[in-house]
């Protein structure tokens, strides 16, 4: 039964991912649409960060926000992403002690 669930989950995840590979060559986008698609990564990042970040510690949204603020500060200083991630983990770890 679990195998059937896994196969079903795989199909509904793969199909939306792969369809654009076939249709994108047939589409000609206008300039504003290209700008839209180019902005998508940044919009996606925004939508993925907030409000999800408040659920890191489900009953304490502030901890996620503080961890996020530390990440913003470290990233603003120009640190490598790996250090940004490590800094945020340490922050949350200390705050939940």
């Amino acid at each position, binding site marked *: 039964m*679990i*195998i059937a*669930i*896994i196969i*079903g*989950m*795989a*199909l*509904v*995840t793969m199909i*939306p*991912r*792969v369809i*654009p*590979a*076939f249709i*994108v060559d047939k589409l000609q986008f206008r*300039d*504003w649409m290209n*700008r*839209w*698609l*180019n*902005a*998508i*990564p*940044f*919009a*996606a*990042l*925004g*939508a*993925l*960060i*907030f*409000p999800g*970040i408040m659920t*890191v*510690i489900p009953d304490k949204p502030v901890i*996620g926000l503080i*961890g996020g603020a530390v*990440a913003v500060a470290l*990233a*603003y200083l*120009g640190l*490598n*992403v*790996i250090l*940004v*991630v*490590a*800094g*945020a*983990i*340490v*922050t*949350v*770890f200390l705050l*939940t*002690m």
Partner: protein
Amino acid sequence: MDTELAEEQHASPTIHMIRKGFTVGLPIMLGYLPIAITYGVLAKQSGMSLMELTLMSVMVFAGASQFMGANMIAVGAGALEIIVATFVLNFRHFVMSLSFMNRLRDIGLKWKVPLSLGLTDETFAVSALHTKEASAEKGAYFYASLILTAYASWVGGSFLGGLLGEIIPTQLSQSMGIALYAMFIGLLIPSVKKEWGVGLVAVIAMLINTIFNQFLSDGWAIVAGTVLGGLSGVFLLKGETS
């Protein structure tokens, strides 16, 4: 620096692109490992076997929906319910894939199909910040190597989590939950520093996501935030960003 340059010229473009993709993929690997381990631990606790939980990572390769799937299996939800929820949650990858594939126009279909299957929030975000490779010689190897780095760490981490089971202290695995968010922030900020409009697009997407979250599922709210938030970029961003 000079020796490095000389070395790069000596290495074949294929090797060079594979190496570069791996280097760029390393932060994803670091972000994935703790999350994948957490997933493995959780899936094991929800009653899946080591083989099943690893297979799910191999076949689905989508973090949030795997957490949700494991949870739903634990509470005894029906197969159809889980599959529909997965579809809703992962539909955002359709939008991301459209954006990604639009950048890969110079790359052939035999590459585009497997690359599209490797799209996640993270591989998409990182690839989208490296657009020059799309038109470079052997550029497809760059994206393939980046995605395989992420994929290997996701699958390997899941397996490890399933093995480790209850050994990892909850406080540590919980703290690791911030890793992916921190990575998203770490990816976004450099672009914001270059162009403030990028930050504005992201904030607008956050607000739209928050509003839609009140009455839609997480997955659809993220789709709305991405699509509508991205639309603001038409006015806020210059012609060629990143």
